[in-house]
Each structure stands twice: as C-alpha cells, then as structure tokens.
C-alpha cells in the first residue's frame, strides 16, 4: 500500500480531498487548519495508514459494501437498503436541522448503551464545525443542526482509539463513513477492531471555509443562527432575520473535492438520514444493516421517533438526485483521470456502466 | 628549551564538531608551547554556526621560526579528533604514513544521518581505513571517560592529556596544568586536572 507522498500527489495536490479528516492526528506529516489539509513535510513512509484510509484512494468499494452490508438488497441508485421511511422526532430538539432524527438516534445509542462514545459535530458560532466525542446525552444538543462547512471530523477516531473506546458510533457525511469502513477493511491484523455503528448523513456537497468570510461580507455584524437548504433555495437565518442567498453564489464555495463524490446517501452506513424534501420537519431514513434496523427499532419503541411509509414518488426523486450526483462525480473523476490523477474507483466497472445506462433514461 | 623537536615544524591537527571545545583545548596547548619558548601558530577553521559544523585547528610548532597557520596537505604529524567521521575526513586530506592518530569513538550524527539520508559508518570500518592512511591509530573513549569523570564537556581536555603523553609533543603534564590553572579555578579546574590525567594515562608509554 502506498504512503504519504502518494496521498499528496493523488489526493491533496489533485484537490480530490473530501476533508473527511480520517488521515489526521495519527500522522505527524499531515496538518490541517480550517479547510486546508496538507502534507506539512515530505514523508518517506512507503506504506501509509493515510493512504489506506482515504476515501479518495483506490478501493474495491463493492467488496467493502458486501462485507459490511451483506444482508440488504443491492441498489444501484442509493446503495443497499432494506427499507426507506419518512421519520421525525415527535418531541424535537432545539436547533435540529430537519426532523431531529439523527439527534434522537444518538440519544438512543447512549440510553441503550449501544455505543460508549459518539462522534458528533457541533459549532460555537452556528457555522464553524467543531467535531467532538461525546458520551453525554446533554451534549447532543450542541451538535443539533447541520454545519455546511466541510469538517475533518474523522480525525477524532484517533482520540477514540487512544481512549480505548470499545463501542463507538459515528455520525458523519458519506465520505466519512467511507473512510470508517475503509480503515477497518484495510486494518492490519495486529490492530484491534472497534465495534462501530454508523449514522450516515445525506450530503450533496460541503462548503469551503471562505463561505464564512462571504457571509460576513454580505451580512456584516449579523450573528448567524442557522443555515437551511429547503427545496426553493439556500436560507441563512441571522439575528436580524432570514436571508435568501442565491444558489449561484453558494456554488462558488463548494469544495473541489466534493465534485468527485459518487455517494449522496452514505451508502456504506448502517443507517442513513437526510431531509425529507417534500415536507418540512421530516427526515428520510434508509436502513441498510441489521445494526441500523436495531437502532431504529429501539428509537421508535422508546418513542423518540415516529415514522411513516415513504412515498414512492419521493423515492424516485431521491434516486434521481443520487444518480445525478453519481453522473457528475463520474465525469469529474474521468476528467481527473484524463489529466493523470489516479482514479479512486474502477471507472469501467459494471456498476458504473450500469449507472450511466440508468442515467440516460432517468436524468433530465 | 627542555626538549628538542623530533620534527620541525611539528604539525598537529585537533578536530571535531563545533561545541566540543577543541578551540579552547588548542589554545591551551599552544599557550603552553609559547610559555616554553617555542614558536606556535594556530589556525582555526570553523563556519558560522556555534555548533554542528566541523571545526579544525592546525597547530604548528617550531623551535626556530614562525610558520603559516595552515598545514599543507598530507603533512600532519599528529591528528587528535573528537569525532570518528571527522577524524577520517581530516586524515584523508592531512595524514601520511607516519601520522599518529588519536580519536574518540563517540559519533556525533550529522543532519543527513538524523534525517536518514546518509548512514553512519561503523567504527571498525573507520579505524581500518585510518590504519591504511596513517602510521598508528589509537581509539580513546574520551567522551565516555569524561562522562564517568563528571562531565562530557571535559572530553577535550582529556584528549589533550593523551596528546601530551606522546613523546613527540614537547610539553609535559606540568606545562599543561600550568595553563589550566591560569584559566580555570574551583570545580572546573579540579575536573580538568582530573580528566587531563585520565587522558594522559590512556597512552601506553
């Protein structure tokens, strides 16, 4: 397995990095401030953990999927899943993004001791992401709501290992769940395994940190309270009111590394959660593994969550959106490949050939 | 003059790494020689850094005239060195088949070795090459002996003790002790006198 210099050339210097953070904090060569992640000094390690864990270096993703999600029926558009639900927490939590489902799944993890420690991402200023490890129910509210600036939260894995956490849970973006799986998949036999349960978020993209400066320029002196992406656009709520930011402007800040992403729905997670686009205040939930099912069931039986059948039309819309993202990602990856960047997926595999075929019929 | 020079000029090189104290050791040696009425000149080569670079002092001793501060290539009679690879570097340029070499064996790793780009040769290989280049090589565990005696920094004076014990060097213990007494007092003097003696005893008469 290659090392740091290959990571530098194939990922960091090629701007394909997703800023998942999985390579950080173990290795002294890799450094990060804000959304910059670089090799601060050239490394000579030929076989690096960084390369092994990175979601943007090559892996047999289908084999990984089979290994961790063996039971759910395969789905080419949104990854393997048993069931899709429309879900929300009947009693919400302050600051929740959509239906508060994630926060309540986390609460269930803690109450039922399905995990000792959970990786969450909070923020002091409602915009700058700050990943942290938590074992306290009282801390869940610090993480409620989505931080749309990219955050290298997976760095906290090292802290969890150092704390000798046995049962760990991660709430993360698709790239972070990929890293989590890949790390275990490429784990050396002598490193102990962690029992992990993963709650994956849907994610179309995350933003570079310059977006913060942009907001400061646009709305000087205003305190940002939350950011939401309802169907009609991009809403920034501040202490002075709600501002609509033109999507054309927001787009300028999308991280380059997100262009290559082929996974909108956290296809490797035990359970994936996103917005329910058709109705405010609800979530979309995809259950992908038995662990995920168990967590969901416990949440429901505790009364933390209620659910409804998922409307067929919405499912079709979701799949369409996911395929659209895959198509954009594939063409970006192909472009990168053409300029000499080593691809992180097998672009000619049957799966992606099928994606392309499907897209021809489905994407407008 | 108490002793005739076996060779005139007698050329001695004292070398090591910056911070090991060879400039002081050399100055004391040359002072003792001048006190005794010899012409002694010292040339010192060191770069900008206080430590870490190679430092080489040339001492030229004559009973009749003053010599330039640098020794011509291949004309060192004695090489005293605080660092094995520096011993070899200097010997390649300045030793001849009758040169006598006294060297410490303690490595001082240069940056390239610390970085892992270069490797540090074995002491056996160094000594083997030194033997080919010179007349005689004696390894003295100067730093280790100095550490045992109380302070690694005193390795320089310890090696001066060994040097003074060589029959070709026209000063004796009392001469060097006299300059030590001029420069040091108290604990430092005590330690230096002690390590000087230890060094002196390393040479089999």
């Amino acid at each position, binding site marked *: 397995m290659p090392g740091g210099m290959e990571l530098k050339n194939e990922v960091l210097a090629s701007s394909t990095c997703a800023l998942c953070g999985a390579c950080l904090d*173990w*290795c*002294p*060569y890799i*450094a990060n*401030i*804000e959304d*910059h992640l*670089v090799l*601060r*000094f050239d*490394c*000579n*390690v030929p076989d690096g953990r960084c390369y092994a864990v990175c979601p943007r270096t090559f892996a047999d993703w289908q084999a990984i999927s089979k290994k961790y999600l063996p039971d759910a029926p395969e789905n080419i558009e949104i990854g393997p899943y048993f069931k899709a639900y429309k879900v929300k927490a009947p009693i919400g939590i302050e600051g929740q993004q959509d239906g508060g489902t994630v926060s309540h799944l986390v609460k269930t993890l803690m109450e039922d001791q399905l995990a000792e420690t959970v990786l969450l991402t909070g923020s002091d200023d409602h915009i700058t992401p700050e990943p942290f490890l938590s074992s306290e129910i009282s801390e869940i509210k610090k993480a409620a709501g989505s931080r749309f600036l990219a955050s290298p939260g997976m760095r906290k894995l090292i802290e969890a290992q150092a704390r000798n956490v046995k049962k760990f849970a991660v709430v993360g973006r698709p790239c972070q769940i990929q890293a989590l799986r890949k790390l275990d998949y490429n784990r050396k036999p002598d490193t102990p395994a962690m029992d992990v349960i993963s709650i994956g978020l849907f994610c179309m993209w995350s933003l570079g940190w310059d977006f913060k400066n942009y907001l400061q320029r646009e709305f000087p002196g205003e305190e940002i309270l939350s950011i939401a992406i309802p169907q009609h656009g991009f809403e920034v709520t501040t202490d002075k009111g709600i501002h609509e930011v033109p999507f054309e402007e927001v787009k300028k800040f999308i991280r380059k590394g997100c262009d290559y992403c082929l996974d909108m729905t956290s296809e490797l997670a035990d359970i994936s959660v996103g917005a329910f686009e058709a109705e405010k205040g609800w979530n979309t939930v995809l259950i992908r593994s038995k662990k995920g099912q168990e967590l969901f069931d416990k949440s429901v039986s505790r009364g933390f969550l209620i659910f409804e059948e998922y409307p067929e039309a919405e499912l079709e819309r979701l799949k369409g959106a996911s395929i659209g993202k895959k198509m954009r990602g594939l063409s970006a990856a192909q472009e990168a490949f053409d300029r000499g960047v080593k691809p992180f997926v097998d672009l000619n595999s049957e799966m992606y050939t099928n994606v392309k075929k499907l897209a021809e019929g489905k994407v407008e | 003059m108490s002793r005739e020079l076996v060779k005139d000029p007698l050329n001695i090189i004292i070398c090591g790494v910056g*911070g090991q104290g060879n400039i002081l050791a050399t*100055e004391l040696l040359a*002072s003792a*020689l*001048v006190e005794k009425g010899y*012409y*002694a*000149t*010292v*040339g*010192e*080569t*060191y*770069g*900008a*850094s*206080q*430590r*870490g670079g*190679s430092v080489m002092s040339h001492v030229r001793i004559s009973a009749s005239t*003053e*010599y*330039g*501060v*640098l020794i*011509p*290539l*291949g*004309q060192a009679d004695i090489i005293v060195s605080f660092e094995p690879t520096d011993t*070899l*570097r200097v010997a*390649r340029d300045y030793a*001849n*088949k009758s040169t006598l070499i006294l060297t410490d064996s303690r490595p001082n*790793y*240069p*940056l*390239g070795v*610390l*970085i*892992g780009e270069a*490797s540090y*040769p074995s002491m056996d290989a*160094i000594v083997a090459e030194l033997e080919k*280049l010179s007349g005689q090589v004696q390894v003295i565990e100067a*730093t280790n002996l100095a550490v045992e005696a109380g302070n690694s920094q005193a390795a320089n004076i310890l090696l001066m003790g060994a040097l003074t014990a060589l029959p070709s060097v026209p000063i004796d213990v009392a001469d060097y002790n006299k300059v030590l007494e001029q420069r040091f007092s108290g604990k430092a003097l005590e330690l230096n006198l002690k390590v000087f003696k230890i060094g002196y005893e390393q040479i089999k008469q």
Partner: protein
Amino acid sequence: MEWMIIANEPGKTYLMQGNEAIARGALEAGIRFAAAYPGSPSSEILAMLGHVAEKADIYAEWSTNETCALEACLGASFAKVRSLCIMKQNGVLTVGDALHSASLSGVRGGLVLVVADDPSAHSSTNEFDSRHQARAAAVPMLEPVNMQEAKDMVKWGYELSEQLQQLVMVRTVTRINHGRSSVTLGELPQEKPSPAVIGEWDRMVAINWFKDAQIAKLAQAQEIFEDSPFNWYKGPEDPDMIIVTCGTGWLYSSEAVESLGLKDTVGILKIGTTWPLPEKFIVKHLVKTKKVLVVEEVDPFLEQNIANIIAYHPELNIELSGRQGQKAIPRNGELNPDIVLNALTNLTGKTFARPETVVIPQEEAVALPPRELTFCAGCPHRASFFLLKQTLRIHEGQGVVMGDIGCYTMGGQRAGHFLYGFLCCMGGGINAAEGLGNLSRFGFDQPVVALAGDSTFFHSCLPGLVNAKYHDSNMLFVILDNSATAMTGFQPHPGIGLTAMGKAAEPVSIQKVVEAIGCQVTVADPFDIDGTTNTVYNLIKQPGLKVLILKQECATLAVRKREKPRVWVDQDLCRGDDCGCGRFCSRVWGCPGNIWDYEAGKAKIDEVVCVGCGVCATLCPAGAIKMEGGKADE
C-alpha cells in the same frame, strides 16, 4: 585572553589571537574610544575591549550598525580622541558613504578602521575584498602578515592617521583574526589625553572642496610608505622570480620557497602598505627579475596595481601572474600553503619529496556522511522555520519568504527546510518584501514573508519597515527575537539591556518601536508550534502589513541560565520505524538532540547535546518523548 591585552609587561611574549593582538595594538596606541558592529571574524576585538574598558579607561560600544560605529568614531576624532572602528567586509560595504565622506573631511584624532575580510566566506555570504573600498575612498591601507604585525600596524596606524589627518584602514583576513601566534607586548601608555576643546572655527566637513587635500594626503602616505618597515625584500639579488605578497601570503610563500629549495633563485617582496603602493620601492626590486608571482587573498588587487605600475615603467620587463585569469592561483577562494606550493611548482618546475601518503580508491573508501551546518540543539530558529514552513504549506498559497543575515540565514538550507526563496544582505529581506508585496495591485497574490533577527532589525530594518508601513505593502514581517547576536558570539544589541562594557542600559523594545511606526504587531512563542502556526496562518490571511515577533531566547544563552530539564524517549511508546511517524523527530525536526537508536529501531535523545527545550516532546505523535523539570512538566 583579556588579561593579556591589558598586561603591563612590555617585552613579554604571549600566544595571542589576531583579534587580541589588534585590541592590544589599539590600547598601546592609547585609544579611548572603540565602536563596532559584530561580524565574524572580527567580533572578538570589540568584545574584549568592552570587557577591559573600565580597567583600560576607554569607552567601547556595540553600535547599532557599522555606519553608526564609523561615524561615532568620527565624532570622537573631532575631539582629537583616538578611536578604533571594527567591522567585517560586508560592513565596509554598508559604510561606503560614510567612509568616502570621512576621507574628504579627514580626521583630527587618529582613527583606525580595522576591516576583517573572510576569504572563502567561511562565515559570510560573500568574500568581498575590502581593499577596493580603501582605493575607491582614497584611504591608506595596511595589511599585516601575522598577529605581531597586526598589533604593530594598528598601533602605528594612529601615528600615520594623525600625521596625515586621515583615517587609516587595516585589512585582516580570517586566518589572522582567528589565528594565534606569539606576540611580544609593547608599552601601554601611562596617561591618556582628555578630549580636546572643539573651537568655534574647527571643522570636519565632507565637501568636495577638500578633494585636493584628500589627494595630497594619499600622495603623502605613498611617500611615507616608500620607507615603511612593513615592506621588505628577502631573497637573492638577481632572482629568477619574485613573489610579491601581502597578508597570509607571506608565510605561505616563505614555507613554499623553503620546501622547494628555491631560496637562491626566488625572492619575496612583502608589502604591508597595500594602498597606496610604494611605487619606487616596488620598482627598485622588480627591476631585478623578469617573472613575478603575486600571492594575495581574494581579488587580484595587488596584482592589478602592480600591473598598473609596470605599465608606467618601461624599465620593467615582467611576466606577471597571480589570480587574474587564474594564471597561477585560483580566482576564487582562500589561499592555503598547497595553492602557493602548486603555483610555485608550476612556475619553476621544482617539486619536493612529500611524505608518503595513501590514497584510498573511491570504491574502497568508507562513505562519510557530510557534516552540514545546522541550528544548535534547542535553537528557537529551528522551531520558527518549522512552523513557518508548515504554515505556508497549510495555507496553500505558495508563500514566498525573503531571508536575511544571521544564524537564521541557515534557514535557507536544510536546517530550515529550505524556506527562503530570496536572500540579499542585512535588511534586504524586508525591503525586497515591500516591493514584492506591492505587486498585489497587479494580481500578485502569494503571501510574502520577510524575516530578520533582532540584531538585524536594529541594524538595518527600520527604514524598510517605515517604507513598508507607509506604502502599506501586503506582507508579513517576522522578527526572530532570540535576544542575542548569536551567530557572532552573543554580543549585546540595543534590545538586550546591556552594553559592550557590561553595563546595564535601558533596552529598546522592538515591539514598541514597531508599534510607534504604526504597525499592528503580534508577539508569539516559536516553541508553541501549534498555537503560533495558527497565529501565523491568521496573519498571512489578512491584507496589508503585519508584524510578528517570534520571541524565545537563544538556546545557547538560555542553557547557561537555568537548570536544564531532562528529555527522554519512552521507547515502548515510540512507534519506531513503522508507519505513522517515519522518524519524525530526527528526520524532520532534525535537532541534533534527537538521534536514532539503531539497535532498538527507536528514537532516542542524545542527552549530552540536548538542552531541554522540550519542543520535540510536543511534536511526537505518540507522546513518546517525555520531559521532566522545566516548563513542559505540567
């Protein structure tokens, strides 16, 4: 040794360093005033004069820069006080205007300017030959061949200076300054004259009106030099060849002539007064031969001036060789006995029986790791360069760094992760950065960083900082404040609070000076790698001029003051050669204290070398480097 330079033991012979001999010579001449800016290989002279100032009843100062030093001496000279000014070759370039002006105004009290050149640039960025300055400024110059002559010339320089009412330069080279040999002491004056009253119509004014006087002084010097005891000829009356030499060349040439058995055929003409040349004296000897070899340090200065003499004297019929066109001696680099031996062998065909040496063929020779210069163990510059390098990489904006002169010049080499893209002279960094930073109006958006040490800051960065401030250049100016002029041996500077004479002085605060110019200033600790990295990152993101002071005392000084904490490696925690670290401490951090235990395959601390700064303990990703005592012991 200080006691030697004030020992009242005329006739006694001591081993003296060239710099000691120079200080002694000045004291024998009865100087009362000395000023210098430190620069290898000259620094010991003023350091020693400072230490003995009280006993010798003189005043000595480390001036803020060389121009301050020379002009301070001119001030003393105005009151007819004898003064000594000392600098290295770079210094004599920076004082150009002062020197040329002083030569027009002339002096009243004797003024000797000692300039220490550094052939082969052992501890310099160039090997400028300061004799060009003497000639350009029409100032007489002397060049000693050994330590004794260095003392004697400096002493005589004052007589000459007062006789001519002109300053006198004495040019030495590293081998004289840092070499040692026997010096016989002369007498120290019993009484020193007090400053003279400067009358209403007394003048020392540098205006071109005095050009004729300046030329006349030089002519008078030349006349005096014709009979100078510092010039002599040694050799046969009808030599096949004459070596004309000065400085170190004299002893090398004598040894070569002796070794090659050429005493009966080759003569040596030794010149101590190298500007203006004693023309008649030289012609008188050169007519004896048809072949001349010139042996001198650095440039073919003597050689070209002799060529000039030959051009005006048809009676001379000479084949001249030396450094020019590398006819006999390499054009570049320091002299040594072998260069002179080889030149003579080539010119005469004579060889001598060298002792038997063995040359080991390359393939059989032990491979020796090169000994590169690096920062001392615990040096704050290592931390500063480490964090600047990483911050610029993290920022991903291709920051450009402009270096400057001091220990930290090494930051342009491996020791500082090759941080510099630009290096000029003292104060050059900030000035160039000011220019580069002002290109932002044309779209230049790479961060621009200039560095300077604390001593360099005072020496030559103030005008640059005012310039950068006034023109609001887009740049970060980093002052590496290690409270020392470490490179040259810890001379105090205005920020330290100590004078050359060891007296307390009110330190000039760099921070306050910078603030008074109107700059935003941040002070940070380079040993706090993470915190200061963030600070630097945030600074380079801001537009306009920013100033950062990285403050941490020079390790070599700090270790003298406090009990050293113990740093060691817990080898059970050390990740060794495996992935995850790649020997980060020794390979990247690169402190001589962080070594590798080849047997264990783990990191180790060389406790002999380590000064206990503890920075490596904060960098180790496995927490394997431990520290006990000192500040990291929380």
